[in-house]
């Protein structure tokens, strides 16, 4: 029997507000444990939550870009459960009156656009962080009360690769919006996945497993691949899939049942009495719409059209907002879209990859990169020297292109006399190549050009070298 894979994703994203969702504590990451708390986020008696206006603005942007219908009235509800990372013993979340519903996200599947439905986008507060050591668990409440949106997809995803694409697209959109930095290592994006299998021609969904402990997009894809395989084997052997929560074990590359004896959760949601309802009117929605920036897809099309870039280069340059912004900053200084694109998408990205660095933390100033590109264009240095000597120095930030030029003695030599001397020497020593060339093997000259370049320690202008050699060999 053939089976169809059905996947739904629940993604939690931290919003980039300066303060927490219901109190004025800072949301900064990586601070001393328990240094960013107050009576409200610690759940001390007598304290009251007050909703952060910026959180509404950020979440509205996200919901609009996900094509959701914004609710006219939203309400917060209490989700009740006991856990040491939740000091109030309830989480302020949204239940039946969430921020937004019925949206979608488009992914590209084999060059075909596919729409993945978004069931809902709702607001909630994050819990604290637990560190498990020996016989104890340590609690840090700094994260407690950090604003989150939960984005729930419809079960429209039909393969682990589509799930990977959905997450990549979602991250691209949310980082472009500057709504979240979506950093999975720091926990600002977290994902749980539901997966079930059913016969291709069946309309009924099979029993699903919820997979947790997914720490990267790759882990999501790997875990779903494993889980699809496991469920298929079970069904083919005539077994049944148990509806349960399973944890992904990154080291062993398997999912394991949590085997918890806990009965089904009973969260007893009820309206949060400490917060009023929130009405979102047309004007709020229009304001949010006007504040939406150009997103990756639009920007890519514009780059192709406005700067005559290839689809491929435009795709790389718009893959992250900081990179696209950087590119356009360079163009303000040097209006050579193709040349700048080649350097940025090529050598600069390669150098960063080699250093295992992310573009968002680049220290190289657009001014210095442009300076280097100009020097290459004007024939002052050759591109090899730029790539191998100048770029690795200026990419660390702090150093000026012009200083490195003096320091490393790599100014390009275009002087015919100096190159001529090296060329004569090369011609004398490479009789065979010279004869080959004279007998009509025109490619033989490239070897001689290479030798002259080597003789000049890479400083000669290759174009001049070729001209001089051709002149001398035809004499």
């Amino acid at each position: 029997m053939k089976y169809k894979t059905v996947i739904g994703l629940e993604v939690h994203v931290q919003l980039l507000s300066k303060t927490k969702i219901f109190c004025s504590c800072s949301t900064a990451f990586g601070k001393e444990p328990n240094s960013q708390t107050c009576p409200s986020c610690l759940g001390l008696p007598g304290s009251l939550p007050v909703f952060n206006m910026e959180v509404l603005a950020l979440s509205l942007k996200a919901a609009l870009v996900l094509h959701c219908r914004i609710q006219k009235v939203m309400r917060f509800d209490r989700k009740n459960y006991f856990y040491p990372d939740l000091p109030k013993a309830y989480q302020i979340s949204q239940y039946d009156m969430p921020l937004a519903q019925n949206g979608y996200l488009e992914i590209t599947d084999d060059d075909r656009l596919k729409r993945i439905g978004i069931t809902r986008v709702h607001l909630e507060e994050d819990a604290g962080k637990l560190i498990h050591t020996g016989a104890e668990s340590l609690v840090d409440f700094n994260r407690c009360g950090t604003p989150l949106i939960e984005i729930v997809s419809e079960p429209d995803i039909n393969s682990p690769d589509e799930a990977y694409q959905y997450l990549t697209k979602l991250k691209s959109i949310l980082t472009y919006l500057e709504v979240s930095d979506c950093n999975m290592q720091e926990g600002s994006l977290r994902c749980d996945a539901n997966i079930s299998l059913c016969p291709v021609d069946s309309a009924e969904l099979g029993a699903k497993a919820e997979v947790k402990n997914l720490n990267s997009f790759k882990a999501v894809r790997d875990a779903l691949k494993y889980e699809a395989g496991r469920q298929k084997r079970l069904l083919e052997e005539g077994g049944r899939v148990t509806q349960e929560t399973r944890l992904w074990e990154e080291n062993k590359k398997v999912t394991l049942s949590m085997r918890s004896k806990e009965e089904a959760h009973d969260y007893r949601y009820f309206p949060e009495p400490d917060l009023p309802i929130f009405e979102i009117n047309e004007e709020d929605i229009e304001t949010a719409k006007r504040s939406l920036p150009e997103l990756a897809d639009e920007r890519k099309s514009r780059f192709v059209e406005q700067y005559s870039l290839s689809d491929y280069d435009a795709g790389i340059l718009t893959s992250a907002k900081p990179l696209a912004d950087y590119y356009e900053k360079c163009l303000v200084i040097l209006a050579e879209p193709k040349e700048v694109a080649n350097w940025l998408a090529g050598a600069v990205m390669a150098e960063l990859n080699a250093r295992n660095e992310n573009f968002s933390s680049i220290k190289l100033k657009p001014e210095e990169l442009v300076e280097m590109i100009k020097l290459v264009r004007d024939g002052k240095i050759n591109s090899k020297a730029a790539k191998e000597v100048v770029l690795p120095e200026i990419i660390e930030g702090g150093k000026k292109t012009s200083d490195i030029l003096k320091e490393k003695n790599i100014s390009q030599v275009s002087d015919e006399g100096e190159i001529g001397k090296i060329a004569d020497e090369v011609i004398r020593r490479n009789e065979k190549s010279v004869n080959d060339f004279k007998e009509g093997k025109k490619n033989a000259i490239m070897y001689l050009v290479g030798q002259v370049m080597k003789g000049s320690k890479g400083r000669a202008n290759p174009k001049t070298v070729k001209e001089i050699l051709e002149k001398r060999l035809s004499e």
Partner: protein
Amino acid sequence: MDVKYTAELAKIRLNKEQVDKLGSELNDILSFFKNLKEVDTKGVEPLSHVLALKNVFRDDIVKPSLKKADVLKNAPQKDTHYIKVPRVIKG
């Protein structure tokens, strides 16, 4: 009314006597709701919240948090940085 289940959710331990007493009290309370159900609510808009307020916001401006020493003061178990609780996951 399942008193034991409710007590379990609220993490309180009850003896047999208390279960019986609370059971009958809670049943009395629940029966009051039956009276409410008899009220004719035709044409009455559903209420989404008991507060008459709406749209109460604050600006996104950081204010000083509590000192760590004060935060940890009430914790029965702690070290210099953290509140300590009995280990909550196995393994």
